[in-house]
């Protein structure tokens, strides 16, 4: 494997890591303020 190929694999790993973090790695949500099906929420 030459130097350019190593750079390609590093770039690829960063790109995959970014997408995984963005879409799959979710922080635990804090207490939600949503109301669900509740008309009298407010």
């Amino acid at each position, binding site marked *: 494997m030459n130097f350019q190929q190593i750079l390609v694999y590093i770039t690829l790993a*960063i790109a995959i890591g970014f997408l995984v973090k963005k879409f799959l790695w979710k922080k635990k949500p804090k207490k939600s303020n949503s109301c669900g099906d509740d008309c009298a929420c407010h």
Partner: protein
Amino acid sequence: MSKSTIKVALIGNPNVGKTSVFNQLTGLNQQVGNYPGITVEKKQGASKLSDNVKAKIIDLPGTYSLNASSIDENVVIELLLNKKDEDFPDVAVVVTEVENLKRNLLLFTQIKDLEIPTILVINMADRMSLKGIEFDLPILERELKTKIALVSSRKKTGISELKSLILNYESLSTEPCLNASVIDPDYFNNLRRAFPNQLLYKLWLVITQDVNFLNLERNEIKNSFTKSHSDLKRLQQKETIKRYQFINDTLKIGQKIDASKATDLRAKLDRVLTHKVFGYLIFFGILMLIFQSIFDWSKIPMDFIDETFTSLSAYTKNHLPAGEFTNLLSEGIIPGISGIVIFIPQIAFLFLFISILEESGYMSRVVFLMDKIMRRFGLSGKSIVPLISGTACAIPAIMSARNIENWKERLITILVTPFTTCSARLPVYAILISLIIPEERVFGFLSLQGLTLMLLYLIGFGMAVLSATLLNYFLKLNCKSYFVIEMPSYKVPMFKNVALNVIEKTKAFVTGAGKIILALSIILWFLGSHGPTNNFKNADAIVLQELELSQNIASIEPELIENKISSYKLEHSYIGILGKAIEPAIRPLGYDWKIGIAVVSSFAAREVFVGTLATIYNVGNHSDEEVTIKNRMAAEINPVTGEKIFNFASGISLLLFYAFAMQCMSTIAIVKKETNSWKWPLIQFVFMSGFAYLTALIAYQILK
């Protein structure tokens, strides 16, 4: 935080010019984020007050009072009642405006009663003479027990006085405006005796508001001082009446209004702009103007960007040492970035127009105008704000539905908003329209491409309304409904506000969507440049052997041989195998496997479509010539039929697919958050994508 930084909370009713004051104080030193745990927008910025002191300014969501009726308003109360919050202000700056001072002062008196040092800003001072309004500031300061800054964010006056007042905030009186005990003396005296160390008005807010108080013994207070809901409401009304009595008495001596000086331009404009016929015609005309301009004005900068990146890609390939990383740069990364940057002009123009409409006060008239229509479809007039904001991005638009009090109307708005054409669809529409719609003019001045774009926006809006009707019929939720909206004064939009909004929104597209597009471009390039089988690895030998068998290889142009090898490789690459696998499902829609890859990858975010095609076509073309994305797409030929891949039928099919499909993971996430359930985003995804497939299929089969 050091003592050299003063924490300032900027609070006020909606439409008082709070954001203008924030912009004047902070300039470009702004950060936009969310409050922890919830998706209410949090804007903060820094302002230099003197050589040694600066202010950290938090622009809180607009609220009419401290009696919260929406999640946005809860944010204000939770901050002001929690001294342990890291953003708890050293000083509150309450922004009001000259024309509605009486109503604005209700919030001011409530905040003052929390004994937080409070400065009163009377904004839009430049309109005083126009409206015949005069203030006796010393009297107002004495009665309201505060310091007042008379500000015109438009004329940039009074900001330095405001900074000086913030700097000297410690000298401000914290004496309340209203003694809370007057609301119900017996009840409040008992409350005071039970909690001698707590502020009386703060206790009252804890009892009456349904918000999370992290550091107050809410249950203890509530259990001991429970009153029925109707009793609490009655006391809240009594409090409001007492406050208005105080405000009336204050303004009687501190404000003078000469009605004869007031001009009636606003009423005249309102009569025309909200007219039951002219109102809609004007709105339609404005929309048409916007879409014409987006296409016409963006053409030159877009062509320039496209050509620049194409040249850069060719330069990189020719001047860097040959190898895989050079290929990644020239065929993956640079075309990927180009797929983001090229749409900046159109997105900036769209937000420019939306900002101008909002800033001028016209958008509120549109909300009023649309209420009558919206109500027929189970929506509220307030739904028009998310639906129009949805032209920027569905995520903040769905969040903005929080000010719709009725849950059913809010749910319907959340579910149909993703149909409106967001800025991520714009790049897809722009490139497809330029490929399949000729650059012709109708009546000599209307661009056919611009009209097509407008039609797509109207189709999205129409589908949103149609879906709302269906949901209104099927959803069995009975909620009371009412509609109240404030009509702000007409104003000439401020350049600074418009410019900051355009920069903020365009930046959000480039940094938010841009990173995703770039990451996917890199992965797609890799998948298109590598393959698992021997067919891929021995592509050169296989193609040459095939050519030798079919004709005299010496007579074939070397460039043609190179392109045949590239196409063969792409077909047998990972991406090619994946594309071929899904081809049977998308072929009836008129798409080949390359478009299929772009469609599948854009289910994460639809703006990825153009970048993906740019990457795929770059991988499949090894010519050194400079060819733009658009030309590459236009030149794609179906090897079986010999027809163009992007023809009228497949183009319309693609446009309709993108108009209706739910292709945004972030939107799904925000719908889940706002509805607190996976049920609604799943229904939304299945319905939208299924409908998109069906319409694209019908369109292609009819038009082909």
